[in-house]
């Protein structure tokens, strides 16, 4: 048996399904119910209201597409806002979307009642409309509760039929348009047009449903943006045409009085048969739109539960049907209450539509803000495959927020109060429930912090609680030595090794907690050292790769790694995780073995190697920990070809190294050992507490090699050992580097 078991999730929604889900919801009920209300409020210009609504929706779809391809997880707008702006705004959007979907669903069901009851004038309207609506709703709730595996083919056929009927209506209707009816075009003026946008915006929430099920879409990077943008554009055009036809065939005043506007228009040019077709299409539309809304509402609820913003008790799946039955029933009951309100409120349809629009406009504004936050904070998890093109950013989010706010300001006062009430509900929910449950704070502060400052940055990978304090102390010492050049900063990273990192995978909580504790402890250490430290929790299948990637991302100046001091022979030198970092890190590398508690007096071996001067600088930096003066030690052989005094030669080497390191003579002491025996070097070195050795670049094998003397020191020294190498030019390959320096 291999590996641990981890449940995989399938992605089963293809492009066509995403289109029918999104487009189907949009071509749904709105197209049959809204023309009456829209005409009443804006006259023939209501087609412009739909165009404006479509444009606002398109902006939101652009932002949502980027976010959804960056994090294809269930929850849609709610999820992105919660991640970007934290639980407070998450709570507002979560509740806003949930209630918005319920209001929309109630709106569809009342429209459903109107279309079924409408052709039968002998029946008493109101109560029956509500009753039919409630029956339809129970049907949908039942289907969702039992999780009936509806055939998607049937669904495609139904939505295809409905779309075909609407197309026939538009194409035939265009020939019956009486241009006299289109005068005056905009009886209510620009503000009336925008106010109408507020009512009809509910039609466009279908594309949001695609984002809500983003976690289930196949090839999300391609299918999500394509289906969202395409469905918005097509539906906008269709709605505008429907409005032109409807207001062109019947004067808008009488259209406004109709509860079943499309069928009243159709009777003019399609006759009784046309009306039957329209009623059938309207019924299908209402059912499918309402079904997608309830389906999406349950997913929003689930996503809130997942982030601890909602009680898990509401989010249990049924043991037998596997459906989120409690969330569905709760949604159904509340929607039913909204439908029932229709008994007493005359203008219920417009009201429901407008409140739903309000909620979604607020959500989309926050989505636009979240997009900006994600782009600025740029967290590791965010790697969208669809990005808003550069020339449209930040125009899209800014315009999106402005237009959403503009539409909201034109809404009726009642609606604004109701909508703000729902926003208040989200806020109150945050205060009484979320604050104590959810810990996610979002990325807002990171986004405000802005770009990483270009300071001297030391990255310290930590894994062992026993050594991390000392590692951080050394790192702090080297970082602080560069204070005059740039603000020093430490970055503590821990890599959680997982076999195959995928967004759906759950890393065991225990290991995550361990990682969290390690990084938390690092922060405490840093506070004591009075140095600024950031932590980064990484996950990756290869520790070395993750560290190397971080070094590039952070534009690090140095990486300081702990090393057990043992040489691994198995094809590795320092160990499987260290070798690649030592070999390929673009910055300076310090490999530190801690034997001694104190840094004491460091010594650096001054030799001809290319990294001697870095070793010397490091010794100076480390010395600051204990306020000592480091020694530069040169070892010279006694036998020479008559090349002068070995002592003087040693002093010259030391002076040269110090010069290259930019040290002046007060910062170090010199020591020259004249001996041929390696043992003598080790004896000399062993008098110091900490030894810094430059990494040798001489190597015949294609792997890290650090010279025999350095190797012996690292093995036999009783104090701390630091093996140091300078920064590499990133453009140079290890191969050519060796050849150049040989």
């Amino acid at each position, binding site marked *: *048996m*291999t*590996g641990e*078991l*981890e*449940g*995989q*999730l*399938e992605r*089963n929604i293809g492009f066509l399904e995403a289109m029918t889900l999104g487009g189907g919801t949009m071509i749904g009920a709105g197209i049959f119910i809204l023309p009456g209300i829209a005409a009443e409020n804006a006259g023939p210009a209501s087609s412009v209201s739909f165009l404006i609504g479509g444009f606002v929706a398109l902006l939101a779809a652009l932002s949502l597409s980027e976010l959804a391809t960056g994090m294809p*997880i*269930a929850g849609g707008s709610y999820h992105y806002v919660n991640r970007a702006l934290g639980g407070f705004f998450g709570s507002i959007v979560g509740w806003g979307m949930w209630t918005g979907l319920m209001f929309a669903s109630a709106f569809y069901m009342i429209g459903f009642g109107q279309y079924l009851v409408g052709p039968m004038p002998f029946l008493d309207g109101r109560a029956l409309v509500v009753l039919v609506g409630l029956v339809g709703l129970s049907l949908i709730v039942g*289907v*969702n509760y*039992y*999780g*009936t*595996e*509806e055939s*998607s083919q049937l669904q495609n056929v139904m939505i295809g039929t409905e779309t075909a009927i609407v197309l026939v209506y538009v194409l035939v209707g265009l020939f019956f348009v009486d241009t006299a009816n289109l005068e005056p075009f905009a009886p209510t003026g620009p503000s009336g047009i925008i106010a109408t946008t507020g009512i009809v915006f509910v039609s466009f929430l279908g594309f949001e449903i695609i984002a809500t*099920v983003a*976690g*289930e879409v196949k090839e999300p990077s391609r299918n999500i943006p394509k289906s969202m943008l395409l469905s918005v554009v097509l539906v906008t055009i269709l709605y505008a045409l429907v409005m032109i036809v409807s207001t062109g065939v019947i004067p808008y005043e009488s259209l406004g009085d109709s509860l079943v506007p499309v069928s009243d228009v159709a009777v003019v040019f399609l006759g009784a048969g046309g009306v039957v077709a329209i009623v059938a299409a309207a019924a299908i539309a209402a059912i499918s739109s309402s079904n997608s809304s309830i*389906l999406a509402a*349950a*997913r929003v609820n*689930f996503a809130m539960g*997942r982030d601890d913003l909602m009680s898990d008790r509401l*989010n*249990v*799946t049924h043991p037998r*049907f*596997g*459906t*989120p039955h409690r969330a*569905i029933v709760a949604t159904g009951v509340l929607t039913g209450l909204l439908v029932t309100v229709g008994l007493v409120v005359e203008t219920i349809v417009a009201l429901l539509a407008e409140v739903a629009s309000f909620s979604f406009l607020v959500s989309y504004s926050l989505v636009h803000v979240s997009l900006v936050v994600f782009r600025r904070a740029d967290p590791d998890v965010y790697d969208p495959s669809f990005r808003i093109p550069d020339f449209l950013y930040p125009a899209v989010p800014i315009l999106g927020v402005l237009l959403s706010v503009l539409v909201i300001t034109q809404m009726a006062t009642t609606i604004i109060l109701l909508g703000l009430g729902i926003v208040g509900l989200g806020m109150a929910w945050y205060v009484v429930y979320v604050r104590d449950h959810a810990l996610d704070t979002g990325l807002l502060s990171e986004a405000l912090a802005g770009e990483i400052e270009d300071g001297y940055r030391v990255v310290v990978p930590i894994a062992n609680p026993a050594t991390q304090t000392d590692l951080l102390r050394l790192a702090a010492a080297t970082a602080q030595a560069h204070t005059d050049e740039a603000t020093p900063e430490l970055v503590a990273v821990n890599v959680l090794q997982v076999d195959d990192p995928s967004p*759906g995978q759950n890393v065991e909580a225990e290991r995550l907690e361990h990682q969290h504790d390690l990084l938390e402890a690092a922060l405490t250490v840093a506070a004591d050292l009075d140095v600024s430290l950031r932590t980064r929790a990484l996950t990756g299948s290869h520790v070395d790769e993750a560290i190397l990637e971080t070094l590039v991302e952070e534009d690090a100046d140095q990486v300081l790694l702990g090393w057990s001091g043992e040489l691994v022979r198995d094809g590795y030198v320092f160990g499987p995780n260290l070798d690649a970092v030592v070999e390929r890190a673009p910055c300076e590398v310090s490999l530190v073995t801690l034997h001694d508690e104190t840094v004491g007096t460091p010594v650096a071996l001054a030799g001809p190697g290319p990294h001697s001067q870095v070793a010397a600088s490091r010794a100076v930096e480390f010395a600051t920990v204990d306020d000592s003066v480091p020694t530069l030690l040169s070892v010279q052989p006694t036998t020479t070809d008559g090349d002068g005094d070995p002592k003087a030669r040693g002093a010259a080497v030391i002076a040269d190294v110090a010069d290259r390191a930019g040290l002046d003579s007060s910062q170090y002491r010199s020591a020259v050992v004249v001996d041929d025996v390696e043992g003598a070097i080790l004896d000399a070195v062993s008098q110091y507490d900490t030894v810094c050795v430059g990494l040798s670049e001489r190597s015949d094998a294609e792997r890290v090699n650090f010279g025999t003397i350095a190797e012996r020191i690292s093995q036999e020294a009783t104090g701390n050992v630091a093996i140091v190498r300078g920064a590499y030019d990133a453009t140079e390959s290890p191969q050519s580097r060796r050849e150049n320096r040989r």
Partner: protein
Amino acid sequence: MALTGESTILVPVDVSTVEPPDSGVLELLQPVNVVVLGWYPVPKQTAPAHLKADHESEAAARLATVVDQFAATDHEVESVLVFTKDRRDSIDRVADQYDCDAVLMPGEGGPIDRLLVPLRGDVNLERIVTLVGELVRASDASVTFFHAVEPDADPSQGEFVLRGAADRLSEEGVERDRIEWTLSERDEPRADIVSLASEHDLVILGETEPSLRERIIGAVLSPILDEIAIPAIIVRDID
């Protein structure tokens, strides 16, 4: 455990119900590697992530029980847990991913002593015979090859296919007296297979359609699979 070079068979198990694998199948699959695919059906109205959050541990425990039953052998047993709305899709994907040679379709039955192996000519023949050989070499089960030729065609052509398969199987180390064959000259291979299946304990079929989805339970195979009650193994046509 390293891959032993034997065939690998995918065994899909519905982990939403307690459904212990059949003891006959367990015994039959002992000589080969097994990939157990635990799939949890997700209703259309539910978010798969939601169901996973609620039922993952329970599903994993059931899958582990099934895996344990297979794990008694020396062969590699791997397992995958999937929350899916489309079982076929998952089977196709996992079979591909784990390089499975065949997929087991569960059915009713006790001990498996008689295997029915319908052949469609040379298509996939090598793979089918190799797998049959591996499965029955160590047991004393009998194997019946079946082939149908058109009524007015030359029956010797069909006999040639069957004899060839029988020869290949005995090369695989199965005694000749355990191998039979039936040649049909009626033009109703499907009905023949269904009626023959009632006298056998397991049927091994080759994939017929080229498309990935159709290959596992394609248009041709599914009516047969619907009509027979015994378990079936479908040998994939990987190349």
